[in-house]
């Protein structure tokens, strides 16, 4: 038996180090399942998983959809653009409506930070956070950490650098909470306008100079410049951003030989990372996608088979 009591997975912040390790152990087993002739096991047979995406997403949604299907759950995909939300139905009403189908797990992506716990009052299903505003994206951090652990063998005492739009990034926050639980040191780097001063309070180092940060890092996570989220300009031009913060063939020479360069995807080639490095960097990013499936299977398996009640740790 494994030690797992959580009804929901709302954020890495709520998870203990032991719980994160449980996810990793399961994910390793689930990777094997995806290599079989029949890539499916009946673990969640008869369960209903609803992918409830109030914000657009292709990768995370397909990854969760496939994860649920590989565990034999029935999956319903709901995206706001093709739903009654565009007719004016509220989010709470939408969840209440879906509750009539008695779902077991809701995988939710939503634009409002920290809104999932309040939404959990309107459903008896378990909720898995697939990204809530600028708050957390737990499965992305779990798959990043799982990938690092798979290659480095440990997460202990690593120097992790996160580069780019920290302000709008739920991936950055989840990774910070996660890696810190394994005593890794965190540093964020980007234009000052995209790094809120409050990140000091999370115990991370802040730098505005990428070249200075490169030599120490064991892991570098480049974040996507989310043009759709930036309502005002946070830097003068893409060209200036690229000059200062893009990974180029010149800059990569300054990194450690075994430094892992990761990206949650989709990569804006020639903005975050130079397309000249594609051949070298892409394989690891694709491995992240593969591991993402296994990690999401692990999270669905855990909330789908446990019977505990959710305790709000805040």
């Amino acid at each position, binding site marked *: *038996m494994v030690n797992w009591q959580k009804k929901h997975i709302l954020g890495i912040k709520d998870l203990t180090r032991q719980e994160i390790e*449980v996810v990793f152990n399961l994910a390793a*087993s689930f990777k094997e*399942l995806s290599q079989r002739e*029949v890539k499916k096991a009946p*673990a969640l047979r008869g369960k209903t998983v609803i992918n409830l995406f109030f914000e657009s997403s292709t990768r995370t949604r397909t990854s969760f959809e496939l994860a649920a299907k590989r565990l034999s759950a029935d999956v319903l995909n709901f995206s706001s653009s093709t739903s009654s939300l565009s007719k004016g139905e509220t989010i709470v009403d939408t969840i209440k409506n879906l509750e009539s189908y008695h779902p077991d797990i809701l995988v939710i992506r939503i634009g409002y930070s920290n809104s999932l716990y309040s939404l959990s009052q309107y459903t008896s299903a378990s909720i898995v956070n697939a990204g809530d505003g600028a708050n957390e994206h737990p499965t992305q951090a779990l798959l990043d950490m799982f990938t690092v652990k798979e290659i480095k063998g440990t997460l202990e005492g690593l120097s992790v650098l996160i580069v780019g739009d920290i302000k709008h990034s739920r991936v950055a926050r989840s990774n910070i909470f996660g890696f810190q639980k394994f005593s890794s040191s965190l540093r964020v780097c980007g234009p000052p306008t995209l790094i809120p001063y409050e990140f000091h309070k999370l115990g991370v180092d802040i730098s505005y100079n990428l070249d200075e940060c490169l030599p120490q890092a064991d892991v570098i996570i480049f974040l996507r410049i989310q043009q759709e989220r930036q309502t005002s300009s946070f830097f003068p031009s893409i060209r200036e951003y690229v000059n200062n913060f893009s990974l180029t063939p010149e800059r990569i020479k300054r990194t450690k030989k075994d430094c892992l360069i990761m990206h949650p995807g989709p990569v804006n080639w020639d903005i975050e990372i130079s397309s000249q490095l594609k051949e070298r960097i892409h394989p690891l990013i694709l491995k992240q996608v593969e591991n993402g499936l296994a990690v999401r299977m692990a999270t669905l398996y855990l909330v789908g*088979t*446990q*019977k505990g009640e959710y305790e709000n740790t805040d």
Partner: protein
Amino acid sequence: MKFKEKAKILSSQDIKRILHRLTHQILEKNPNPYELVIVGIQTRGVYLAKRIKEIIRKVEDVELPLGILDITLYRDDLTMIGEVPLVKETKISFDLSDKVVILIDDVLFTGRTVRCALDEIMDFGRPKRIELLVLIDRGHRELPIRADFVGKNIPTSKKELVEVRLTEIDGVDEVVILEKEEDG
């Protein structure tokens, strides 16, 4: 719940002899060892499977493919037990078509584990035949399942527990019956 040791059923020497006998029974029933593959059920079935593979290698000079099966994801009580069971490694890296699978577990009890294993093996391919080998058959079947090769039949009560201990993980080779300890 506490258990105390009630009786020792098999010693290390007994287990060794039984495994040799069972191996010869397998070979007697399946004269062509080249169509045999061995699959052990996690955890102790895997160690028994390794030992049988080794005996066959000595007797027939054939190296049989060995698979490892974890049946957790196929359990019928997965969402009823309240706790989340760990999923261990499954590894069957060879083709099962037209093979005779010798499925190996330590104890045959309700038959539910074997049901899971049969379903899971079918998801890997279509073997010619599956034969079941267990070290101990303790009765109390809840499904119509029987073993083809049995090390020892041990009539037990449902309150008892049969524990197979193997050197590889338990430091000793023996089979014991445990009994619930009464409080007070």
